[in-house]
């Protein structure tokens, strides 16, 4: 349960505090609404967090190693040290997110206790449970989860996720997987809006997803929670591509701090995410950013993170 700040609990009886609720779906999805049109940046130190905030990041993801290093180092990747997360919380005023292993609800409990603003139940870390994701309804802190397709997205939403991001293939600097996931999710949403009521049962079966969520998509034409893009974004053009394909905000992991000159690149990606349809602006901000991260082709990968999660 969330603790109330003293100011809240001291409000006059019968005042507007009556019926006050924390951790509701509206409050959890609401923060995702506030991050739309923005860039969430992976950072491993308070200094990097400040560079991210200076560049205009809407939030930072605090982690021990960026995905590119997790890939190179191998071994088990886990939740970050609380000291590191607290150092980043002190360094910036924007929301701080952190990653828990898939199914590792105790890591999530610890992150909630630290006052992290969003928990990413992430395939970038080593999974802790090969069958179960975290029951995210049990938490006050909101969760974001990765998905490669609509069925996976809806299963995560049914478990309580309040934001969905494409998985992409983190740490590669290669946008192809994120594009595949986004197109798969938005394409199926469009097809569902064309389906008649009988076909929705078949869609639910095919997607292995709860029928009410499929029916909700048929009615609204969009995912019930915000859809963001993550995994392999490295340039301003990559960010704008994700936005034009229907993402509502972007996560950039290794793409910033594994590039030759992180600060101007981070700024340029922020501007490209805001002005994603303005090609003149994109041309302007893409100039002279130095070398992007080298990147990896999908055929050269030893391990795909996107296959983690079910």
């Amino acid at each position, binding site marked *: 349960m969330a603790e109330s700040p003293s100011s*809240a609990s001291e409000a006059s009886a019968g005042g*507007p505090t009556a019926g006050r609720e924390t951790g509701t779906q509206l*409050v959890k999805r609401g923060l995702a609404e506030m991050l*739309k049109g*923005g860039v969430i940046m992976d950072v491993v130190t308070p200094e990097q967090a400040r560079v991210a905030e200076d560049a205009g990041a*809407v939030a930072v993801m605090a982690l021990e190693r960026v995905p590119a290093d997790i890939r190179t180092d191998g071994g088990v990747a886990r939740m970050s040290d609380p000291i590191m997360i607290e150092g980043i919380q002190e360094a910036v005023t924007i929301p701080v997110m952190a990653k828990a292993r898939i199914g590792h609800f105790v890591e999530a409990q610890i992150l909630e206790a630290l006052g992290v603003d969003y928990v990413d139940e992430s395939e970038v870390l080593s999974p802790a449970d090969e069958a179960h994701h975290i029951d995210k309804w049990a938490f006050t802190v909101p969760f974001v989860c990765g998905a490669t397709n609509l069925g996976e997205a809806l299963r995560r939403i049914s478990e309580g996720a309040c934001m969905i991001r494409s998985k992409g293939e983190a740490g590669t600097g290669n946008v192809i997987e994120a594009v595949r996931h986004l197109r798969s999710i938005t394409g199926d949403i469009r097809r569902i809006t064309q389906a008649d009521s009988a076909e929705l049962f078949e869609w639910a079966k095919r997607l292995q997803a709860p029928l009410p969520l499929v029916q909700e998509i048929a009615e609204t034409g969009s995912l019930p929670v915000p859809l963001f893009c993550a995994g392999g974004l490295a340039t301003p053009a990559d960010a704008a591509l994700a936005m034009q394909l229907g993402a509502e905000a972007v996560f950039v992991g290794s793409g910033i701090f594994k590039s030759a000159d992180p600060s101007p690149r981070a700024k340029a990606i922020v501007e490209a995410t805001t002005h994603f349809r303005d090609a003149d602006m994109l041309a302007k901000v893409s100039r002279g950013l130095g070398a992007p991260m080298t990147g990896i082709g999908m055929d050269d990968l030893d391990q795909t993170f996107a296959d983690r999660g079910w």
Partner: protein
Amino acid sequence: MKVGVLALQGAFAAHLGALEQVGASAVEVRTESQLADVDRLIVPGGESTTISMMLERSALVEPLRAFVRSGRPVFGTCAGAILLSSRIVGGRSDQLCFGALPLSASRNAFGRQRESFEADLAVRGLDDGDFHAVFIRAPRLEVIEPDPPGVDRPTVEVLAEIDGSPALVRSGAVMCATFHPELGGDTRVHSMFCEM
């Protein structure tokens, strides 16, 4: 009447949806020419630091100042309220505020996301029941002396309060809310702004 929603970052899509529901013609504003084309403006919630930087990088600072000065109605919600206030507590030193109202805004004064909440507010002017308000990493507002003192400005009318601080205020053509009327499906505050 055309209502613009500043769409540099934040909850602009939800505001456009709410404006559509109350029958207003609403458009996204990201450039000076788009701003020049609207009769009133909503500055949405989001990250006030990011929106402030993007106003500078999109050459919108002076156009927005001029818009506010022109007396066209402006409504700031959450981060938008911070941007329209005269003083920011707990912000970045380079963070802009437009001084549209004599308000001091303390960022994230209710705590982190864990402490974000929903509450029913009695709103002056809305007679048909409380407004169900969503507060997300909300700022706390305080009405302060206009700077310079003695300047003849319309008084700030507090329309709703949370924990003894203003949650919804109006003065002249400017309205500010520390909560998110665009979330939750009740469009009465948007109607109020469109009728101002």
